[in-house]
């Protein structure tokens, strides 16, 4: 596998990971990463990255130990906040007793996110949160979704603004759950 990596056979895959893509089970490259994990890991370690394999959720991604720059922080904040707001909106929309969890999010039929997260339909208090992190128009909201698509966290599946989440979204799901245990101002 090391020779194949060296010969440039997986350049597209490596480029994708370096650009922030999450390679999940649906991708053909998943098997390559799985089989040559050690060689890929060595390759990325030399570049200052760590290849993370979320075995249970079925996806790979790169993590960098270096502190993010302000631009990257802003982008991480925007993507995470958009995700939190999506969860809120889906919870409010869901009238039956369906639990909003990871399997629910990974539904292949997706969600009309462009409609649900539009300034026209979003409740005022959530719209204000969007404004606070620099998403001030529907175009900017779609740009964040598109960025998530580049990272293979989400995917647009129809022209009417329906998007589906991909396995990599488990990272954001874990992030959101991490706050559930944090009790603001309390020590429990």
């Amino acid at each position: 596998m090391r020779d194949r990596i060296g010969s440039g056979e997986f350049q597209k895959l490596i480029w994708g990971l370096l650009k922030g893509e999450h390679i999940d089970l649906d991708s053909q490259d998943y098997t390559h990463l799985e089989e040559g994990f050690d060689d890929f890991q060595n390759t990325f370690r030399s570049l200052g990255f760590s290849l993370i394999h979320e075995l249970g959720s079925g996806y790979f991604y790169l993590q960098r130990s270096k502190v993010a720059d302000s631009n990257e922080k802003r982008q991480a904040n925007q993507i995470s906040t958009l995700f939190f707001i999506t969860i809120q909106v889906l919870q409010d929309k869901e009238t039956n007793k369906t639990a909003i969890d990871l399997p629910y999010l990974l539904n292949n039929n997706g969600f009309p996110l462009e409609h649900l997260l539009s300034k026209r339909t979003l409740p005022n208090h959530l719209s204000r949160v969007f404004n606070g992190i620099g998403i001030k128009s529907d175009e900017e909201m779609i740009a964040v979704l598109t960025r998530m698509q580049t990272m293979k966290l989400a995917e647009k599946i129809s022209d009417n603004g329906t998007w589906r989440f991909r396995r990599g979204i488990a990272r954001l799901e874990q992030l959101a759950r991490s706050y559930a245990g944090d009790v603001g101002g309390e020590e429990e």
Partner: protein
Amino acid sequence: MSRNATFLSILLENEELLASIAQESEHRVSLSNLKERISQFNPELSSDQIEKRADKLIKSEPFPIIQEIFQDGDVVLHEKITELFLWLSNQLYIVHDKIIETLVETINLASEDIRQEINSENKFNTHLISIKMDEMFRSLSQLRNISEQNKRAIATQTQNLRDKNVDYEYRKLTAGIIEDHLEPLRMMINDDSFIVQVIDNAETTLGIIRGNSTVSEELKSKSMRLSKDMARTSTKTREDHLSAFKSIQPFLDVFLKKQTDLVVGSQKALNLMNEFGVKHLNIPSRITLLKGTRSNNIFSDSAFKKWFIRVNKSTEVLELKPISVEQATSYVPSIPVSRLSERISQQSEVEDLLLFIMEKYPKHGLRPCLKAMVDCMVKINNFNQLEFGQITPYSRGKDYLEVASIGYAR
């Protein structure tokens, strides 16, 4: 979070625990029993967290939810807690299902009495039947009023639950109480509810009256009016409650349906963002996302290839060469250019700089001596003090060189 919201959230957090204490005699348990109960209802809590939870209940503001009785170490549920729930229930203005049941039971009893009277072997008392029918009219009228009142009250509560200005905790607490009130009322809207059954039975009784030739036309007419009234009331009561439930249910679900950690976490994150700003969440440290357009993440294809070659070379197994002690060479330190250039500049004249250096450092090779000469020339940094001579041969060991001699004159 405001003090009231904190207080209500403590109440919500410990709802089951408080309900279990409320069932005890005098609403009283020992302190150790309180902690045991906290542990039972929250198995995920550590002993330290259980202590804190108990402490939070005892020290809650504006008044302690659980009061300590210092004489015997017991704790008691504060009387205001039960009052609070009662007050909140009264604020709903939703007529209790027991009252509706009582009215329906009144209709049922009147209907039974009428049937008993008609079936009696003696001549039946039409006056008594008329009185019982009036009782049924009254109950039906009350039922319609209650139905109207509940419809309005539930609509008001729906608005209250939608009101974002009201604390989330307060709305959640109210939603729980509304749900408790509505649950028995849901029985009414079913096709086989007790109202439908009672009305069907009463209708049969009234049919018997109308079919009896000995009954006066006046009573038959009254029976007809009562039948229509019953059908109208049954339909209205069920439809009013059905439409009211439909309007409130989505809002109740928001507060009452089981929320996953994902939903709770997202809510908390957004609340924290609202209160302290997004930086407070420190998201990038929790989730590092790579950004493709960042310059130091971009490698050209050629750079990448070179890097691969380097990595592959570095990972090659090194062939260890044996070290021969016989080939040991003595260590030769490098020529100190600063000191040497100083020495040269102290001389009034040096005819041949390279020869001068070679004589000073006999153990150094020709190449280091030549390099030292150039370094010294740079160090002296005065071209006018240099004099170029004839081509001269220099040799040391196997090295041989023929260059113009360079002299120095101050």
